[in-house]
Every structure is written in structure tokens, then in C-alpha cells.
């Protein structure tokens, strides 16, 4: 009989589940986010509570056999939120801990290759957010941006924005996952907000943003259009680089 471990969705929760697998020497096991769980007649399910101590223990324990680089890969794969990624991560950990040589470059193993490919997708999305964030200066002096990334990449963006925009207060908010990161000139913290519904409406912009802000947006919009070479038009390539789902956040692509 297979054991299903349900966890609340955090990385700590996943690592606590891994702890449980080792503690109870489970062979037939599957880890799943609670929200995705559908009761099943044959399997036996357990709810795992997230325990920081156990999670930390697992994370440090991995270092015996798994390199820091590969550990980062596991974390990034987790952020993909792909269904069933937990079990690929568990497979990787089990194989990595039991092997006598490093397994990290064995791309002939389809699950290891799957981690590799998932990480590539997450990295691309993280990079896109570094690129596509568009700050708008609010009347209370905060550079504010909203995003809606395909994966939960915001934690990966923190250090980039912190070291780049060290002298301005900024807030990047993931409206899909309803949390953001806020920099107050000293530290970056994770916050949750009630955002006004009309904050994205062009006709309401002057309620929230400064006059200069709106003028700079126009300048940027016009600059963007002036730098295009009409006789080289290539919309297919354009959309490949900036898929349409990001347009609503891009000052230069909004009407």
C-alpha cells in the first residue's frame, strides 16, 4: 500500500515530508500539496506538519552527498509548483544520498534531466521578472510594481533588486500568489496587502502616482516606438521574446 504525504505547500513542509519518509523508512510513498490531494480508496494518507527544525536538518544533511549547486536546483524545481515535482525531488534526494558517486550530471536518467529542464524554465522566468518589472512611483514615494509570474520566482529576485536599487524604496507584488517583497532602504521583507481594485486602471493613475511618473511613462512609451525599425518588422520574434501574457505589466506595451 502506498502512503500519501500531504503538506501545506511550503518548502519547509516538503523537507519535513522528506524527513518523515526517512524516519519511517517508507518505500512506496508520494508527496503532494494538500490542495491537490484527492482521496483515494487504496492509499493511506497522512498530513505532515511543517517543522522548521526537521526541515533544516534535512537541508543540512543533504550536503553530505549533494553539492550546494544541486541543492539550489532542488529549491528552484520546487518553486516551479509543477504537479508531482515533489516526487522527482524525493527521487533525486534518495538517489543522491545512496549513490557512491555524484549523480548530478547523469542526464541519461530521465528524472534528473527533468529537474535540469524544470530549473531552466524557472531560471528563465526569474530572469524575465528581473527584466519585466516596471516600477511606478507612487505619491508616497515607493517604486511599485505588480507581477504575475508563471512560477513562484519572487524569492529568487530579491537579491538582484536589493543590490541594484539600494537607494530607493520599492515593492514588487505577485498578484497571483498574493504576496510581495518590500525594501525599506535597509532590509527586504515579505508582505501581504489589500490592493485597490482600480490601481491598474489608466484613468485612475493620477490618484496613486505622481505627475512626473505619468510623464516618464509616456516618454518611455514613445522611446520604445521610436527605436523600432519598421522595415525589419518581425512580430513572431517579438512575441517569442515577450509573450502576450506579460504585456499588461509593460508600460511600453499598454495602450
Amino acid at each position, binding site marked *: 500500500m502506498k502512503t500519501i504525504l500531504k503538506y501545506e505547500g511550503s518548502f519547509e513542509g516538503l523537507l519535513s515530508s522528506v524527513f518523515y519518509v526517512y524516519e519511517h523508512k517508507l518505500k512506496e510513498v508520494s508527496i503532494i500539496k494538500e490542495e491537490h490531494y484527492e482521496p483515494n480508496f487504496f492509499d493511506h494518507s497522512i498530513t505532515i506538519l511543517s517543522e522548521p527544525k526537521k526541515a533544516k536538518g534535512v537541508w543540512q544533511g543533504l550536503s553530505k552527498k549533494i553539492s550546494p549547486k544541486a541543492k539550489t536546483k532542488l529549491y528552484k524545481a520546487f518553486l516551479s509548483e509543477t504537479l508531482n515535482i515533489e516526487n522527482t525531488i524525493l527521487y533525486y534526494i534518495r538517489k543522491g544520498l545512496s549513490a557512491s558517486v555524484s549523480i548530478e550530471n547523469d542526464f541519461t536518467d530521465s528524472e534528473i534531466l527533468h529537474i535540469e529542464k524544470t530549473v531552466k524554465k524557472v531560471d528563465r522566468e526569474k530572469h524575465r521578472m528581473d527584466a519585466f518589472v516596471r516600477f511606478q512611483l507612487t505619491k508616497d514615494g515607493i517604486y511599485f510594481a505588480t507581477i504575475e509570474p508563471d512560477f513562484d520566482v519572487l524569492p529568487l529576485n530579491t537579491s538582484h533588486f536589493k543590490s541594484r536599487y539600494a537607494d530607493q524604496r520599492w515593492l514588487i507584488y505577485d498578484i497571483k500568489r498574493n504576496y510581495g517583497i518590500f525594501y525599506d532602504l535597509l532590509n527586504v521583507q515579505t508582505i501581504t496587502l489589500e490592493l485597490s481594485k482600480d490601481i491598474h486602471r489608466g484613468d485612475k493613475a493620477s490618484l496613486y502616482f505622481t505627475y512626473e511618473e505619468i*510623464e516618464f511613462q509616456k516618454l518611455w512609451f514613445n522611446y520604445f516606438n521610436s527605436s523600432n525599425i519598421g522595415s525589419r518588422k518581425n512580430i513572431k520574434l517579438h512575441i517569442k521574446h515577450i509573450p502576450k501574457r506579460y504585456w499588461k505589466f509593460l508600460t511600453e506595451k499598454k495602450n
Partner: protein
Amino acid sequence: MDFKRINEKLEILADAAKYDVSCSSSGSNRKNTNKGLGNSNGMGICHSYTEDGRCVSLLKILLTNHCIFDCAYCVTRKSNDIKRAAFKVQEVVDLTINFYRRNYIEGLFLSSGIFKNADYTMERLIAVAKKLRQEENFNGYIHLKSIPGASDELMREAGLYADRLSVNIEIPTEKGLKLLAPEKDRKDFIKPMEKVKNEIIQYKNEKKLLKKVPIYAPAGQSTQMIVGASGETDAEIMYTSAYFYKSFNLKRVYYSGYVPISNDSRLPTIGSAVPILRENRLYQTDWLLRLYGFDVRELLNKEHPNLESDIDPKLSWALRNLDQFPIDVNKADMRMLLRVPGLGLKSVNKIIKARRYRKLNWEHLKSIGASLNRAKYFIVCDSTIFETKDRTSAQLKSIILSNSSSKFSATLSNQLSLFDNPNTLSA
């Protein structure tokens, strides 16, 4: 700030700067010091893409489009009847800072028409960069144009503030330059490039010995050539390119398909197509030279003065050198793997790592990401099934072409006829 006036200037001076194709913001190593604004280390970021599919990474503008020169291929040439404008130093600084703070850009790419003389122009460009660095504590990316003929002292100063410097040689051959820009001399382009090269070498040497040396143009130098304006062959372009890479340690050479902007009889007429496919083949060749270990003479020579347009230059080389294939992916060295059509840098890297675990077969290669529809004719692997037929290169070429579709298939038929028409290319 008078936003209306700035907007007019911005439209004119961005439009005039857009033919400079470089928009790279990578390769620098400037950290954000003392809680200032910005940094530029490692990878560049493309913040947007224009509708022509090009990266927008920097605020790319001219300081002014007033110019004392009359180069036929250039849109800001003296005799062209266009709107002229000029930014003040402070206006460029304000635009850069405000765009940067909103995460629109990685930094500034500042070029200029030449007003009064070379040094006067270069001084103004430096003034912008200096102000950004010293007054605004700006650590983002700055790319300045080296003005042909600028003095050594100014080039030395420019490198202290800029991450990258570039001089566009524009016309690949000296005879082309004489025809299209008779007032200009190749030597004027080379002089600032030489100075910057020597300063970079000196900086690197001093850095080995001393702790604190002011950084100098950390992202190096680049240049650009216009393709299809003066009737040059691909070999002429790429030999010039190889010469500049070697002699001046350039980071990049850019190739810009000539966009017709003039009715001058020396040039392709307005309305003729931009040679986008040819430009693409030249870039592929450039990549083979810089990253794949090819020598330019292997790809272009007396017998083959032009690249084939229907297949890429690596495949073209492989078909001319069938005696070197097939190779065994489980044994071949990196140099040879990189020469296999259908294997790129990333797949070669994965192959080399993965084959330590076990011998690779077709399935493995496919999931790693190799393009087997091309590669399979040039390799063997851990499998008893492989291409055994002895085919001539012409046969192979037609098989590969019929099994793949080029993203250029539409342009290909157009441009082939363009290449066949002697009037469009020989100016």
C-alpha cells in the same frame, strides 16, 4: 523638466540611433557601492523587445544628430533634409536616471553626430558619463561611442567612466569607405580603438600588481559593420572581422543589414529588402569563430567567397569535409563534437558530462537536446542502428533540407532573387 520638448528630442534622437545594433549590457563588473544606484555585473538584461524583435537593454540615443560629415550610408549625414535636435548634458542624465529607477533599462548607450570636431564631441559624451558616475552615484551600464579621430587623452578619460567603448568601422573594405564616405579615413577609426586596447592591457597588468586601480572599460570594445551597402563579399566582411577581433581584442563585432535610407545612386535604392538572412549567416559565422573554435579560412576562402544562404555555415563546412565524419559521440573530443551539425554548445556540454556515466544512445542524445535530424548523418553512438549509406554532400544536403523547415523559408525565396540581382548589391 519640460516633458513636451524632451519628448520631441527623444523621438528624433532615438530614431537616429536605432541603426546601431549593439544593445549588449553584459560583461561588466561594476558593483553598487555606498548604497548608490545600480550595478552591472555579469549577464545583461533585455528589458524589452521592439517589434522588429531586437533587444532593448539600454537607452540608446544620440546626443545630437547635427553632423559635419556626409557619409552616404548614414541617416544623419549633413546633406540629408531631416529634423535636427540636440540634448543638453543634464537632460540625458535625467532621462537615464529616471528610466533606470523604473527598471526600463540597464543603462545608457550614447552616440552622437560630429559637431565642430571630434574632440569637442567626445568631450560632451564624456561629460554625460562623468556626471552620471560622480554626481548621481550611478553604477549602471554606460556604453559610449568613441568618436573617430578623438585624442588619446579623451579616450583615456572615457574609459574611466564607460563600461564599453565602440567605434563603428561601418564599411568593411577601404575601397567601399572611399566610395561612400570619402571624407573619412580608416586610420581615424583605428586610432581611438588602439588607444583603448592599450589602456585595457595596461589596466589588466597594473591590477595584477596594485590593489587599487581605477577600473577601465570593463566590458571592452566592440564595432559594427554595415552589410550590403558597398558590394563586399562575405569573405571580405569576415576577414575584416577576424582581423579586428585579433588585433584589438574586441568583445563583439556586429553586422547590420543595410536599411535603405537614401536615393544616392551609390547605394541600394529605398524599398529594397534589408538583407536579414545574409546578416543572420554572418552572425552564425561570427559565433563559429568566437565560440566553436573555427578559423575563418575554413569557412570562407578563395573557392568559397560567400556563405551559402540555404544552409548554415557549420553544415556547409561539414558537407565540404565529409572525410572527417562520422565521429563517435562517446569518444570524440570537445573540439570535434562542436563541429557536428545539430550539436550546439549546450548539448555538447551535456554530452561530455553525461557520457561519464554510461555510453550514450540515440534516445539519450535526443532527450539531451541534440538535433538528430541533422546530427545523425555525422555521428555514431551506442547503437547498432546508424546511417550507413555512403552519400555525396549534394545528396546529404538535399535530404537534410527536405527534412527541416527554415524559419527563413519565406525570406529565402525572396532574398535568393535579391542575391541574384547584381544591381542591388554592387553599388
